[in-house]
């Protein structure tokens, strides 16, 4: 009997303490001290939320740098009973989960590489990220797209390359992680470049 009482009392107390008080306390602290981060590091342009700096988004236009392939899917807007490919669906993260010996993976990698040009391409541009929401590409992956973006925007390639240079983030503290470029931030900076002139 005393065991049952102890069970009920401690389960109730710890549910209140760890399941309610703890997350609410952290929420209170985070919203007071790091309000922008607590809400998801959102990026606003002219008062409109254009995304989160932590979450990649789908870019298909030649005028923008593209992020990594994304394996996320979503509901078909024309037929809610179907699921269709929907890259960078930030409401349902997923990787491809395809096997190393998967035929469809090998074909996808080949097709993505060939779309970028002849020969070998940077790995990040031809493989799907784990989350489907990877906000970054490698510096090599960014430089590989400079020509295309410059042509589409009628900019001097040197100007675009300089912009990429300024956006490369090195390893954190000089040692952790990999060098990278945040695609959304790079494209926002790209939109701010004066048309034509900068690289002349």
């Amino acid at each position: 009997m005393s065991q049952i009482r102890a069970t009920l009392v401690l389960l109730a107390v710890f549910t209140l303490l760890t399941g309610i008080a703890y997350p609410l306390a952290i929420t209170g602290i985070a919203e007071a001290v790091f309000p922008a981060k607590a809400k998801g590091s959102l990026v606003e342009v002219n008062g409109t939320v254009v995304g989160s700096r932590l979450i990649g988004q789908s870019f298909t236009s030649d005028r923008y740098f593209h992020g990594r392939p994304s394996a996320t899917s979503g509901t078909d807007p024309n037929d809610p009973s179907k699921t269709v490919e929907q890259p960078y669906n930030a409401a349902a993260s997923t990787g491809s989960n395809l096997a190393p010996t998967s035929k469809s993976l090998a074909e996808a990698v080949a097709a993505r590489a060939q779309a970028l040009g002849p020969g070998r391409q940077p790995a990040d541009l031809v493989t799907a990220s784990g989350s489907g929401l990877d906000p970054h590409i490698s510096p090599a992956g960014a430089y590989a797209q400079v020509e295309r973006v410059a042509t589409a925007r009628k900019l001097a390639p040197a100007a675009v390359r300089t912009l990429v240079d300024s956006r490369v983030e090195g390893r954190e503290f000089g040692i952790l992680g990999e060098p990278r470029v945040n695609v959304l931030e790079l494209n926002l900076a790209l939109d701010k470049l004066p048309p034509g002139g900068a690289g002349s």
Partner: protein
Amino acid sequence: MQADLLQAALYAVVLVALAVPLGLYMARVYTGDVTFLAPVEKTLLGAAGGGGEQSWCTYAVSLLLFNAAGFALLLAILMFQNVLPLNPQGFDGLSWHLAFNTAVSFVTNTNWQSYGGETTMSNLSQMVGLTTQNFLSAATGMALAAAVARGFAGRQVRTVGNFWTDMTRSVLYILLPLSLVLAVVFAALGMPQTLAGSVDATTLEGAKQTIAIGPVASQLAIKQLGTNGGGFFNVNSAHPFENPLAITNYLSMLAILVIPVAFCFTYGRMIGDRRQGLALFAAMGVLLVAGFAALYAAEHAGNPLHAAFVEPVTGNMEGKEQRFGLIGSVLWAATTTAASNGSVNAMHDSLTPLAGMVAMLNMQLGEIVYGGVGVGLTGMLLFVIITVFLAGLMVGRTPEYLGKKIEAKEVKLAALTLLIMPIGVLVLGGLAIAVGTAQSSVQDAGPHGLSELIYAYTSATGNNGSAFAGFNANTPWHNTFLGLAMLLGRFGYMLPILAIAGSLGTKMPAPPTAGTFPTHGTVFVVLLVATILIVGALTFLPALALGPIAEQVSMLAGTTF
């Protein structure tokens, strides 16, 4: 390569530097010498009235009762989340089999997820349901380790401590303070923490992007520290909100292993012979480093099937995130499968075959390469019993551990636990194949399909929780049988080791003589590692030959499926 190994070395050094003082502190917690929250502790335990010192049997009853009640509460929250508050996205209640699977999963510290968090769980379920069990399942494992250490150290005593006290102290003095600090650090580094459900954005190309969000930082801290591993989002710590930076990746990896490593030192202190704890630390360390090296080599070599199209410098990047790179993903894969944590920052399903095999083997060895909080240590002690028994056979002496005779009863109980992994993986996995539910759930054809199935049942039985996530586990069959595998893999180890501890506690240690086989030092560590590898290899090599090894051979031969 050099930068990679530097990151790995830095990880090992900082991990041990943190674990040693934490382990000694934890020993003081369990001996009652840490008292800064004594008034809270006294009030709580007074109201609970759980009595004094318990025999191993009573301790086990308390533990099981507490876990059963936690299971019932969580099951109810999950099934009825649709009528409960804090459900901003209006999610339905879970089906009975998914609720059963998830409740078992979080109560057993497995955190296997047959569901995608951001598309299934209300904020109430995530916080009150899952986060609570993240604390309590971890505290249960830690309490067990404290009780077992007391039993092993005991001199003719019939008790192993009090479950309610151990569990309460684990939360108040260890898990909660560490989680508070880590959650605030995580929030400062960019993890969201809000009660909102999602945010709508208009992308630069004018499309609508709905971004799922929620109280992430608080859940992440305890998910790692408690070797739970259940993600807020479907892709777990690969999600940029769960792991926005290389530094959060690094801190998460430290949090995954710090308490399991610390327990080696806690144990040494509690039994009054730190060399014994060091021996366990060394044996686990050898296995961890070996697993990491094999994983790294396989992933760094990349996928030959893609070699014509991919720059070779980065290795296999399918399913990995750019900000962590290969090393941040591989080191994580090695630690999370070794530690029975099961959170992932890369999709294990897309690991090259031998890397995937190492991840499986880490779990199949019984989750004792530091293992889950508390239970990693106790699992290792079962192998210690087997090892001293084998050593005793070789020299023809009655085996002893810590000066106590290891007799038929203890050896039988320890040997019994060797059957748990094979039953969970080979019997239940084989059953799924026999009835055809395996074939309908696997995503990939060829040997990799078998690997997906083996991984699922291994992860469940090992209470790990990571997955080859192409496998569709959310079916009545797999939810039920994976749930049973988790229960078997949790309590099937807990009860025997508690019984052994109870039995050893009643014995009087004899002083060592010239004929005593020392259970510290290099010879013992080598024997222990060999025993673990032989048992693991003998049991699983045939299955692994049909899965990852066959796939590796196919891959090298240029075959796709």
